[in-house]
């Protein structure tokens, strides 16, 4: 008897909850997709925990951002979107937007006004590269090396990767064409300004692959951001590319004998998109979340946990010290003048166009 009563009560409650949700209320559970590791935990600390405390929402973390485009395409084909907010890089956001898989955002009405009173459009400025993309951080892909394995002349420029004579040993590079192709051309004598023009031609692509061929046998290819730090810590490689925040955590938090090569660091943007095809209540929740998570204070908060530059201009003055180590974060940001002496501007619109083509060629080249 009791059980029946309980069951009935639960059913009533569930029903009314469903009705309330359908009535325009927001969902109370959401899946947020990101990159895992140190980066996800910085988001957890800066956004998820305060947001969950404020609203009582349960946030489920999913570290599938590396396959976000593929998985969202598959989900949309299957007609069942299980993600609410997805953290992607700018070029992926552009592709998803082109394909109608990401929601278009009205930046000035759907995002918070900056602390200094500037509208979101002014505050994000040039970083608003797509109608669907809400920028969060500026990060860079750069090279870390083992200080104890490189000998007396530590590398100073990016071409050390291709110099197997001075720096014999294994290196690690990302298992995709982005950055590798650009660095290969830069070190093959192509001027920085011409890289993408050259890469657009068949000869340019052949040239880049030929340069990569010279080190193919001494490369371990990584696909997860945590791979290079692990390989460096193991002493398995002497240098390798990865995201600057990962290297920061390896050097400052774990104290490994590793140093960073800021030369030709490739700036890129990372931010949120909201998939299209969500139910109204889930969409409302997702929009509410990104409104909260991209205001001035929240973006500055993330910089307490990881060395990525906040995407809002108004957040920059608020960047302070690391939450547990107590060191100043500003000198570790990729945008710090001392680090940004020779940066390479990554052309995400170019990559949005050429990604499919070059991915296919790169994969073939890898397996040959």
């Amino acid at each position, binding site marked *: 008897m009791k059980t029946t009563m309980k069951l009935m009560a639960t059913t009533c409650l569930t029903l009314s909850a469903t009705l309330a949700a359908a009535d325009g209320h927001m969902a109370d559970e959401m899946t947020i997709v990101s990159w895992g590791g140190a980066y996800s935990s910085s988001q957890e600390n800066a956004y998820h925990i305060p947001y969950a405390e404020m609203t009582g929402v349960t946030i489920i973390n999913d570290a599938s951002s590396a*396959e976000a485009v*593929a*998985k969202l*395409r*598959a989900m949309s084909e299957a007609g069942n979107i299980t993600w609410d907010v997805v953290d992607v890089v700018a070029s992926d956001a552009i*592709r998803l937007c*082109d*394909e*109608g898989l990401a929601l278009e955002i009205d930046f000035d009405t759907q995002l918070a006004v900056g602390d200094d009173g500037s509208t979101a459009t002014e505050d994000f400025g040039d970083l608003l590269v797509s109608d669907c993309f809400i920028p969060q951080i500026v990060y860079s892909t750069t090279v870390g090396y083992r200080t104890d394995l490189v000998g007396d002349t530590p590398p100073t420029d990016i071409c050390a990767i291709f110099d197997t004579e001075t720096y014999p040993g*294994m290196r690690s590079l990302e298992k995709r064409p982005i950055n590798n192709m650009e660095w290969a051309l830069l070190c093959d004598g192509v001027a920085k300004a011409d890289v993408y023009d050259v890469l657009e031609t068949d000869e340019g692509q052949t040239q880049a692959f030929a340069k990569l061929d010279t080190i193919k046998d001494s490369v*371990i*290819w990584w696909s997860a951001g945590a791979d290079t730090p692990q390989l460096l810590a*193991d*002493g*398995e490689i002497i240098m390798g590319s990865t995201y600057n925040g990962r290297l920061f955590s390896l050097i400052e938090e774990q104290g490994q004998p590793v140093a960073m090569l800021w030369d030709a660091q490739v700036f890129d943007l990372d931010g949120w998109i909201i998939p299209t095809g969500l139910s109204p209540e889930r969409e409302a929740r997702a929009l509410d979340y990104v409104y909260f998570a991209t205001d001035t204070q929240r973006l500055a908060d993330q910089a307490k946990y990881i060395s990525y530059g906040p995407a809002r201009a108004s957040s920059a003055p608020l960047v302070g010290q690391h939450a547990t180590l107590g060191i100043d974060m500003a000198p570790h940001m990729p945008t710090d003048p001392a680090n940004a002496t020779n940066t390479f501007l990554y052309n995400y619109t170019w990559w*949005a*166009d*050429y990604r*499919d*083509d*070059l*991915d*296919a*060629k790169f*994969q*073939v*080249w*890898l*397996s*040959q």
Partner: protein
Amino acid sequence: MTLVLAADGRPLKASLNRALRRQKLRALMLIAPLLIFIMVSFVMPIADMLFRSVENEIVVETLPRTVATLDGWDSESGQAPSEDVFAALYFDLVLATEYKTHTRLGSRLNYEMSGISSLFRKSGRGVGRFTTDTYTDAIQAADLAYSDPAQWAVWMADDDVRAALPMTANIYDAWATMIIVAEEDVPAEEVPWDFVYTSLFLEVMEGAEPPIALDLSAVAPVSLRDQFADVDEDWLDPVVWQIVKIYSPEYTNGYFLNSVDRLKGLDGIEVRPENEQIYITLFIRTMIMSGSIMGMCVLLGYPIAWLLANLPARKANMLMILVLLPFWTSLLVRTSAWKVLLQRQGVINDTLVWYHSTWFGQLLDPVFMGLLNLCYALVNAITWVWNLINGIWGGTDGLYLDWAVAGFERLALINNQTGTIIAMTHILLPFMILPLFSVMKTIPIAYLRAAKSLGATNWTAFWRVYFPQSVPGIGAGCILVFILSIGYYITPELVGGTKGVFISNRIAFHISSSLNWGLAAALGTILLVVVMGLYWMYDKIVGIDNVKLGG
């Protein structure tokens, strides 16, 4: 002839048949859950995979008008198609861009010719900025009725107007559907877009009668061909159009050709350029490596299984636990353990370095080096003779181990084929040991004793008496290990680097990253056929009845 009747008066035969049918039906009902489960979870996905490997509806669905007009284009002319094809492409692409299907089509065609994906992306963005609005302005200026959405809706519902302007009616319908579906607006309240006016203009110029007479002779025609060429001059490349034409049918063998490094050219099947050939190499590599893994498993598994089967029960149980423990341990844990063991700074290499530094190692090193170099010298000599016999002149490369001189170098045991073979042999070993053990358990050890008491040596007793009886176990183990290993992809992905990966890694890549499901399905189908072929061969040579998993 008298008819035998059953008790109820029916003919006996019919009655019996009925009883049998009922029995069969009952039996079918009993296995129905399993049957349905197998159909849903096994047969249907395989059928779906087979279908996906030939399905190619996307081109004709996204570019229906272009495909239809392209029939009139001579693909061997060496010229891009004429204006009417570009007009059809314009209509199709505007609609596709609104539905956002043009990028998917671009990705599909990009499998056949890299560069098309970006062509479609660029054109999708550019197509809205075409200067066809001069037509719109001219038509609207000629008569105000042409700018009234409600009037358009009335016209397009009128059969006479539709008969006079078939193309415009078709385009208007497609536009109206798009407005309702993609924009969620009402067509009778929206002014038609430029491309509807373009089709009206084109038809009027060809002499069709519009509902209100139009004099458009003063309007300068816009070349849509030039407009597309402005966005990207690749549109003038006949090869692009050949690809569109070749892949316009609803079914294609293109994915299968791609899986064997071929492509569909104008004059039939062609070999892909060398920098795009990988699949045949990968198939062969998969077969050879799976074979090596199987061989290693037999070599390692046979003595272990023999021990397990012949030791006293207590000791055998202990050993059995040692076999089963790794079998139950997660695949990822075991693979990661191998990473720790095999890497350059790993346990095995460290031990070797330590050994080479001890006086014992330094004493023995030259001996081993000498032996190894002797082996290499022998191999070289055999190759040399072989070359001499076959008339290939040029001698052999010096295959001597140069690290004997340079001192010990850390071995590259991971991120290559060696890593894959070591890790997968370890992972698949229980699948060899268990069937071998269960077969050996049934071979009475007394046979061996009998053979020896009749004067056989140890070897003869084993080879002539014991081994033939254990063959069914070897067969079962080999089939299990071989078939499992050609399907493996996680372990090769983690420890195989770029040279030690299997065809299944490509299938996984196409399913989860490149989303080329057609190609993945074709590769999967080929793999399935190869496995079935090998199974058939095995049945012919060894006989599948000889395979035993025990008992």
